[in-house]
């Protein structure tokens, strides 16, 4: 299936739950509310024609200050890059996340790889994932304040750790 057909099929199935659709250079995406995210991803994975059974990537986007963008009703998006192993097509699903309480349901139980990727989105964007077993920072240190990839985090800001460096390795790592 080409991506436009997948988009039409998802729209036909979920109707008004699809908040926005998107097409650029042959690549398509749909945006849904966090509450509908798992239903959409599961349905797409189990549908025989779409069958997007691979989750290639989970990433965040902050649209604070994006030009000419007044009608976007949310600040963040969590982007799921999907791929179908059997059909070889790709598709993108985005969760629209508001500024006030950025929470998205975790999909780590559907795809184990989401565990680390969601931790990265939490670390760098401050979007929480409900139901995640171990939502800790992954790139930045535990003492880091703020979320580095938010648009209002200055790129040249520096932070000092209060733990002496020699004590850092005594901290326990979470078992897998």
């Amino acid at each position, binding site marked *: 299936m080409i991506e436009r057909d997948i988009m039409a099929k998802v729209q036909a199935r979920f109707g008004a739950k699809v908040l926005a659709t*998107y097409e*650029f*250079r042959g*690549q398509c*995406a749909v945006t849904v509310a966090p509450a509908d995210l798992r239903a959409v991803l599961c349905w797409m994975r189990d549908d025989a024609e779409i069958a997007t*059974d*691979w*989750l*290639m*990537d989970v*990433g*965040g*986007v*902050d649209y604070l200050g*994006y*030009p000419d963008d007044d009608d976007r009703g949310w600040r963040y998006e969590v*982007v799921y*890059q999907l791929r179908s*192993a059997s059909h*070889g097509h*790709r598709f*993108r699903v985005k969760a629209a996340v508001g500024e006030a309480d950025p929470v998205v349901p975790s999909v780590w139980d559907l*795809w*184990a*790889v989401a*565990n*680390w*990727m969601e931790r*990265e989105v939490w670390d*760098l964007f401050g979007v929480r994932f409900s139901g995640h077993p171990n939502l800790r*920072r*992954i*790139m*930045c*240190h535990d003492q880091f304040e703020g979320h*580095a*990839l938010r648009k209002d*985090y200055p*790129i040249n800001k520096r932070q000092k750790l209060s733990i002496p460096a020699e004590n850092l*390795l005594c901290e*326990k*790592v*979470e*078992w*897998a």
Partner: protein
Amino acid sequence: MSDGTTVRPIPSDLLTLNIGPAHPATHGTLRLQVQLDGETIVNSGCEIGYLHRGFEKQCETVYYQFVIPYAERLNYMGPVHNSNAWCHACEQFLAVEPPPRAQALRVITSEMGRIIDHAVCIGTNLVDLGALTNFWYMYNYREKVYDLYEELCGARMMVNYPRIGGVSLDAPDGWLEKCVKIIDEMQEAVGEVRTLIERNRIFMDRTVGAGVVTRELALSHSITGPVARAAGVAYDVRKAHPYWGYDKYTFEVPTAEGGDTYDRTIVRFHEMYESCKIIKQAIASIPGGPVMVDDHLVALPEKDKVYNTMEGLINHFKLIMHGIQPPRGELYSATEGGNGELGYYIISDGGPKPWRVRIRPPCFANYSVFPKIIQGKMVSDAIAALGSINIIAGELDR
């Protein structure tokens, strides 16, 4: 035991041990913590981020074309592929197609990058297992590839060779012939080193069954590249979503079934061999013509025009000072890097700087499975498995 009647029990607590972040066997800054019962790993966990440099944030502050040298610091074992892939992503965004000769040069440089990536991976992995000879063989050819890069563009490791819309320089006279000669030698050497270890009893005892990534684990963790192919997942972006004319070349996607350290090593050997085949085909069929697209919105004008015509000077000035400005939009572009699918997800606001660049590094998914595959194994197995998964901290932590 002093009075001969009481026996002090042997302490049975589990021993917690840190491996890394700076340890010779981690080949980078990876931190692994294991809980040992004797020498057996009972629990394990890993912590990443020691090489986090804010790559994605940095990309938002520079023009598209200035990301090229920075992208090479992702997978620094086969650097040129990352910048080739970045340019490919930008070209898809701009709907610009580089000339066929530039595409062939990208294939040649990228495949050389894959060969040296695998060569270093296999070489250092075998050093961890106590076999030094292979390492020297492999590094010898890495040196020769660096010499080829140097002749091509003046730099050896971080070459900054491609440009959005093509490549910066055409191959010098005689370079392609020299390539063929070295690739021929390399193909022979790869075969020789493989015979050193393929049926080697010591090597097989150490690696067969060590660090098994099953097919199920590979699928649920979206593992790509040689690690997935060793587990029987025959996914290769070059075959599944061809780019740069990969569909014109005849090559196999080597796979194995076991998914253990041995299979990963052998799959890498076969991939090096296939890469040699691709390079030779690309050189044999390389078309003539320019190496840069003829589009003044993307390509810098020739120096002759910059110095002698007003239009050329203005064009040069505009591209450097105001940058390449793609339309508003978003795009995900995937290529096959040394360790699997390297994806760039770019969002543009119509300006010269990307609004957001998300990199899908293959190592991130590949490494997330690591703590699971070493449980119940010995520390020495963990070291063998770590080397064969080939974690590059530069792209893992970005």
